[in-house]
Structures are given as structure tokens and as C-alpha cells.
């Protein structure tokens, strides 16, 4: 007589398997995908309940909740320095953190394209899990849908984050005042150029690495100094130039920055030069723009540079009065020009 078997299950083929429509149909295949892939990597006390939502503790008295959401679509899905998985975790943590809040929980929703390799999905989910673990922000609930082949781009991920905001803390895009200092936490354009050089197959000798990172630690370090921080923002799509314009128009002020002060990684500068792009409009995924009261500049700069993610922090310039809300820049040549809103997409020049 043979031994009694524990169970009859054919495990997911994570090596050669592919996403099919059944993985989103709500049946056994979907349960298996969730169990063997998502729950296995992302598991925590909330997710392990297997319920439709997560029951979370109320914030401390006096605290307020901050919520932010972000959808992530990126091609290629894997790039030097990261992938869509860690990007989706970092992006939403940063959106919560730049509100001055402490990020607490995330949700994640996946839209998978039929035919997408399970091995790639596993890599992405592992990367999300690692990023969430490192940041100390668990993914407490999630969802998966599958769309037919040709109707997605491999995988889209939407993450939503909830954080707690200390009583009395006020940080926002309308708070910049003439005289305030403008700082950035490090080199600009790294993420966008990492993606673009991968996509265009530029094949630089030393690849440009995305700066994707969770910024809440850096932000906590700055806030802990007690400095009067007016605005925090992560200059993602549209780059630093766009972010400064957004703040200027929200606050009804102008800005004057120094081109020479812009921290720029030489490989990024060279790639931008090659493609005819302006690094001011290239995306970042791990940088912080910060506006603070002028007397606190040294304190803030010290806190930024004292953190691993802010070693190259720099003071870019000052907030000025300007009825037209222009962001102006003294160029490296000593002339002056506008740093305008980006029009459409940046396109490589042809002449």
C-alpha cells in the first residue's frame, strides 16, 4: 500500500509559466497566484488574513491621515537601479512623505497582461516586497486583474499609501515666501536618463542608474531639525523644472536659481547632451525639492547631507517676488533665462 499523500497540487510554474485569463477570473488559478506568488513574498499580518480589506489601527490622537495614490507604467519594466515593483513602492511612499506625514501602509493593485511571464512577475513582486520591507511600510491589501494580450504593457501597478501627519505640521505647495531658500537633495535626471538610455539602447560604458528610493527617512531627518520647512516635493515626471513651476504658481511667487548649483551626474549630463534633452525636465524617483525659511538653510543642508540619500544636496537659489510667477535661472555663462513649464514631451533634436 502506498503512503497517504499530503495533497494534490500542481504548483505554479514560476520558471516558464505565463499569466493567462484564468489568473484574473476569481477561481482556483487566481487563488493559487495570490497564494504562491503575492502572499508568499508580501505576506504580513494584514495580508495573511485573506480578507477583502485590511483592518488598521486608528492614528494617535491629534494626528491626521494623509492618503496618496499613484499608477505606475514604465517601459522597460526592469532598468538599471530598479524595476516597476520597487518604483511603485517608492513612488507612493514619497507622495505621502512629502506631505510631511509618516507613511504607514500601502495597497497594491496589479493589471497583468495575458501572456506575461510569471518569472518576471515574481521578480517584480519580490522587488516590491524588498522595498516595502526596507522602508518599513507593509502592503496590507491588494488586487489583481488580467487583461487580454495586447491590451496592457506587461504589468501596470497602482499603489495607494496612507500615512499619519503630526498635529501642527504644515507643509504644502502654497507656503513658499519671497526670501525662502530652495534646495535639492542630490543629482537630477538620473531616473529618466536610466530609462531612456535603456530604451534607446544607448549602451553607455557605465550604465546610468535610476535613483529610485523611498524618501521618508531623509524627510524625517530634515523635519527633526525643527527647521521651518515650507514645501517638500519629489520632482518626478517633468523633472525639477516642472516641480519648481508648480510650486511657484501654487505659492504665487517667482524663483531665481543658479545653473552652476545644479547637482548633475556627468553621465546624465553627457546622455542629455547626446539626445538634446534638458536635465531640468528629466524625471527623478528619489530626489527631494525643499523650500525652507532662509535662516534655517545651514541646518537643513546639514541634515540632508548627513543622510545617505542627501550627500550631494545643494542650495539652488531663492524664492522671489514675481507677479508672473516665473522661475528664472542664471546660466553657467552668466546670462539669465526662464526655466519654463515643459511643453508636451521632451523630444531629441534633429539638427
Amino acid at each position, binding site marked *: 500500500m502506498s503512503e497517504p499523500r499530503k495533497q494534490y497540487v500542481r504548483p505554479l510554474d514560476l520558471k516558464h509559466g505565463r499569466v493567462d485569463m484564468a489568473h484574473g477570473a476569481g477561481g482556483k488559478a487566481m487563488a493559487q497566484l495570490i497564494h504562491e506568488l503575492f502572499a508568499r513574498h508580501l505576506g504580513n499580518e494584514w495580508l495573511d488574513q485573506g480578507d477583502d480589506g485590511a483592518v488598521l489601527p486608528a492614528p494617535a490622537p491629534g494626528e491626521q491621515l494623509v492618503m496618496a495614490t499613484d499608477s505606475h507604467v514604465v517601459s522597460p519594466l526592469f532598468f538599471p537601479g530598479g524595476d516597476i515593483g520597487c518604483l511603485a513602492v517608492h513612488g507612493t511612499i514619497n507622495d505621502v512623505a512629502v506631505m510631511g506625514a509618516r507613511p504607514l501602509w500601502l495597497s497594491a493593485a496589479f493589471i497583468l497582461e495575458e501572456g506575461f511571464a510569471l518569472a518576471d512577475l515574481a521578480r517584480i513582486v519580490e522587488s516590491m516586497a524588498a522595498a516595502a520591507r526596507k522602508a518599513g511600510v507593509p502592503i496590507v491589501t491588494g488586487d489583481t486583474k488580467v487583461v487580454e494580450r495586447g491590451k496592457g504593457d506587461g504589468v501596470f501597478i497602482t499603489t495607494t499609501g496612507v500615512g499619519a501627519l503630526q498635529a501642527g505640521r504644515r507643509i504644502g505647495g502654497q507656503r513658499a515666501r519671497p526670501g525662502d531658500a530652495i534646495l535639492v537633495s542630490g543629482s537630477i535626471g538620473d531616473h529618466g536618463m536610466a530609462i531612456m538610455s535603456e530604451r*534607446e539602447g544607448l549602451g553607455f560604458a557605465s550604465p546610468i542608474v535610476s535613483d529610485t528610493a523611498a524618501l521618508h527617512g531623509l524627510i524625517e531627518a530634515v523635519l527633526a531639525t525643527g527647521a521651518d520647512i515650507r514645501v517638500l516635493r519629489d520632482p518626478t515626471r517633468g523633472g525639477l523644472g516642472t516641480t519648481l513651476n508648480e510650486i511657484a504658481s501654487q505659492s504665487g511667487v517667482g524663483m531665481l536659481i543658479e545653473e*552652476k548649483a545644479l547637482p548633475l551626474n*556627468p*553621465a546624465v*549630463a*553627457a546622455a542629455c*547632451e547626446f539626445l538634446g534633452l534638458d536635465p531640468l525636465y528629466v524625471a527623478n524617483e528619489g530626489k527631494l525639492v525643499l523650500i525652507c525659511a532662509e535662516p534655517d538653510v545651514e541646518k537643513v543642508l546639514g541634515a540632508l547631507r548627513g543622510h545617505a540619500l542627501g550627500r550631494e544636496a545643494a542650495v539652488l537659489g531663492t524664492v522671489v517676488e*514675481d*507677479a*508672473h510667477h*516665473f522661475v*528664472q535661472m*542664471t*546660466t*553657467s*555663462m*552668466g*546670462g*539669465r*533665462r*526662464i526655466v*519654463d513649464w515643459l*511643453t*508636451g514631451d521632451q*523630444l*531629441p*533634436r*534633429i*539638427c
Partner: protein
Amino acid sequence: MKYIDEFRDGDLARNIARSIAAEADPAREYRFMEFCGGHTHAISRYGLTDLLPPNVRMIHGPGCPVCVLPIGRVDQAIRMALEHGVILCTYGDCLRVPASDGLSLLKAKARGADVRMVYSTQDALALAQKHPERQVVFFAIGFETTTPPTAVAIEQARALGLANFSVLCCHVLTPAAIIGILESPEAKAGGVALDGMVGPAHVSTVIGSAPYEFVPERYGKPVVIAGFEPLDMMQAILMLVRQVNQGRAEVENEFTRAVTPDGNRKAQALVAKVFQLRPEFEWRGLGTVPDSALKLRPEYAAFDAELRFPLPYTPVPDHKACECGAILRGVKEPRDCKVFGTVCTPETPLGSCMVSSEGACAAHYTYGRYKDLAA
């Protein structure tokens, strides 16, 4: 990168600026035209006019490939895509050039035209190979810099026997455009009193410096060929001021690190093999200029999109309010246009000078418009 930094040294720029200020005669004006859009862009991007004394003025020339593209040509490209169902591919800047009926290639795309942006002619060829069942047309625009790659693609298509690849050739010639400006009605009536010209950077690497000799010879104006870096520009302006002061008119070459008198002979030979002169071509702003553009030679007729998809060329006048023409001829400035920055902006370009970052209107809007506004 170090190499580039050498041409972005602010202290050096200020030194050159001091020499320009010291040597420019305060009793006169100096009016120099930078031919290339690349130069226009560098001037605005680095705020170089702030470094020049007020009596040294830069006038933006027509060397911006999309700015000189007439509406009728964009219309042709759009109709090829919409009526003949071709895959139309072109460089990014072309996509937003306003055409007739409120269309542009980008808007035509939204109406179902299969328009693709490519980074190189090689991408266009690859598309043709990937879609043997479709016709692929490359909308070829630009000056002498972009012509050799088009010639290469046509040669390759022939070698590969690609029956579904063709080119709508709108390549134009720099020397002809310079004549167009110097012979424009305004110039003849004394309207554009040019004292000299900053000659093209990349174009000159292909054609060399010799083709500009006619400018001093026939028109008595100095030319200094310059690179696109801000220091190149400053140095070239200083060289022009000196020529004017010394009563000289010569072709000088500031960009010797890339430009030789004869240019790139191999590229020239290839272009001559594939293309021949068009008897005339309509330019935006300059009107119809004789011998100013290229078309495919009869031996390459099989790759000529104009023959494969016969669509008559219909010239279309610019928008009434648009001053692009006068700006390209150097007689007006963007701020002279009534709709600048109000109706016509980079998001909603009315004229082609507002499209490319190298266009005079777009450069002024993006980098310099604060100077026009009261504080």
C-alpha cells in the same frame, strides 16, 4: 563630459564678453544673424544676449528645419497617411507643425493616421522590414546634416530590395537660404542691414566652409562658422566684431575642431549620387527659392514617395497674423507678432517658429519672454 565643460566655462565667457564690449565701437550698431536654430537655441538657453553690449544685436535666421517647412508639405505628408494608409514616420519635431484644417501630424494621428516618431532613418527602415504588408514613408526634412542619413537609408532599401519603403524628400540647402535672405525684398530695400553672419555648425561639418565664400565675395559680409556651444557663439561674435572693425569680409572658421574647408567628401558624394537639385522649392518665410532643395534622382524613382503616391503639391499661405516669414528673414522679432504668447504658444503653435525649440518664437517664449513683461 570634460570636453563639453571646456565650452561652458562662465569665466571664459565673461572674458570674451569684456573683449566684445571693449572692441565694439559705441558709435555704431552691429547686427549679426545666427543662421542656425541650434545657435538661436544656445543664445536663449544660456542667456547670451545678457552678455552682449546693447549695440551688438543678434538676429535669428532661418536655420531651423521645421520652421522653414511650408504648410503644403506637411499637408502632403498628412494626406499620404490618411488617404493612402501609409505608415508615415518622421523626426519628433515635425509632429506638431501646424498644417491646413487645424491639423498637424500629431492631430492626424489622433484621427487614425498611422504616424510614428523615429529617431533615425534606420528606425524607419526597420519599420518597413517589420511590416512588409504596409507602405512606409519617411518624411525627410532638414538641412545638409540630415541629408546623408536619408541617402544611406535609400541605398540600403535598394540593396535590400524593399518595395514598401519610400521617402518624401524635403531636404533643403543652406547656401540657397542665405541667398534668399540676402536677396529678400527687405534686404534690397535696406530693411535687413546685416553686418555679418554666424555660419552653421553641424551643416558645415558636412559641406565645409568653402560654400560660404560667396557671401563676402558677392555681398561683402563676413561669415564666422561657429559650434553650438555657448563659448563658440561668444568667440564667433567677437571675431565678427573684429572683421567689421577692420573693414574685412571673409569666411572665418571658429569651429575648426569639426569643420574643414571641404567638409565630408564621402557624405557629399553619397548625397550627390542619390539626390539632385529641385529647380525650385517653397520655403516658409522665404517664398519660392530656386535650386534650394533636393529630390531623388530618376535612378531612385522607386523610392520617391511623391511618385509612388501622387499628391499634387498645393502651396498654402501662412496664418494672417503670423509673422514667421518676416522673422525668418530677420526683419521682425517674435515680440512684434500680435499673437505671440497669447494665441500662439508652444502648446498651441500657430506658426512653425513656435514649434521647434530652435524656432525663434519658441526660444523667446521658453527662455526670454520675461524680458517683454512689465514687472
